[in-house]
């Protein structure tokens, strides 16, 4: 890799490292910062394309953060760009968890810490429930979707079916729909 490419790779890495470091809580929260950095500042992709990208990445499996970084990195500098973008975006969380895990393990005997965690577990349960309800409201249109959602829930929670099977089943159902209604 010559000097120019090295510098470019570093620039890509740092940009996505920043994005990864300042996004707390997960995938979608990353998007505003990504837009600011990559569309406005660096101009590596324009707004229309990034919107199209966001739509598409929801259609494929994977981690939103990685998917979007890899796409933009690839656009900027091919596979090399994709690699450094992806690496940059996951490194902050990787490092933080590595450090915290050690701390956690040593603090778990403390009563106060236990109470804090018990509280946070209850709180996060509520958080996810609210999220689930909001998602359900916007994504479930029509009786068939509602039925599929409920069925998946029952299969996973009560019948202990592995979620991967429900996803496959959903995909197959979708495909059947395509065959029927195209």
């Amino acid at each position: 890799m010559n000097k120019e490419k090295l510098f470019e790779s570093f620039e890509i890495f740092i940009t996505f490292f920043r994005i990864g470091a300042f996004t707390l809580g997960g995938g979608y929260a990353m998007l505003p910062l990504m837009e600011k950095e990559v569309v406005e500042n660096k101009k590596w992709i324009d707004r229309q394309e990034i919107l199209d990208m966001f739509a598409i990445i929801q259609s494929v499996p994977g981690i939103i953060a990685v998917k979007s970084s890899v796409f933009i990195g690839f656009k900027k500098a091919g596979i090399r760009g994709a690699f450094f973008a992806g690496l940059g975006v996951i490194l902050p969380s990787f490092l933080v968890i590595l450090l915290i895990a050690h701390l956690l393990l040593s603090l778990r005997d403390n009563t106060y810490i236990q109470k804090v965690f018990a509280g946070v577990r209850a709180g996060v349960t509520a958080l996810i429930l609210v999220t689930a309800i909001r998602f359900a409201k916007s994504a479930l249109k029509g009786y068939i979707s509602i039925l599929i959602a409920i069925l998946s829930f029952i299969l996973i929670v009560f019948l202990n079916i592995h979620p991967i099977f429900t996803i496959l089943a959903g995909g197959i159902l979708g495909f059947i729909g395509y065959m029927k209604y195209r």
Partner: protein
Amino acid sequence: MINFTLFKVFFMIGLFSFGGGYAIISIIRAEMESYGWISSTEFADIIAISQMTPGPISVNTATYVGMNTSGILGAIIATLSISLPSFIIMLIIAHYFVQFKESKVIKWILKGIRPVTIGLIFSAVVLLAETSILKPNSQLGFSLSTITSQFDIKSTIVFALVFISYLKFKLHPILVVVFSALIGLIIL
């Protein structure tokens, strides 16, 4: 051997990660149950920590489980493995972007998968509830008295408080977590 298993498992999880973090939790949980790499409570704790740290929940979980199981090397393997499918898939997509965008088959397949992911997210709620507000060894029975007796009162109060305030006030998740921590200290 364990490292290869870590790679295999997390690669597969990455491959089926539809629906975002909370849906993926459900899949990770199922795999963790098979391998016993992490306890339910630990799993719930890492989800909680994930709300306050940078990075996606799924990656954080992979890093933690990897580290717990096989040290720093395990953490690296798990993290890279769960990310690899995304990397490969997006390289392919970047290439065939337009065709993918217009594909009717894909649109229909997603129509089928989307409601499933909603079910997955709700199942994640139950998973978490089992470690947070339900008593240990709960049975999800069908009569009202069976159900209500399974809840740990104090934690459920925390849950209810957070639920109502998050619903009403739309606070940032980090604040919600801090709030939960404080109530936890006070009430529990």
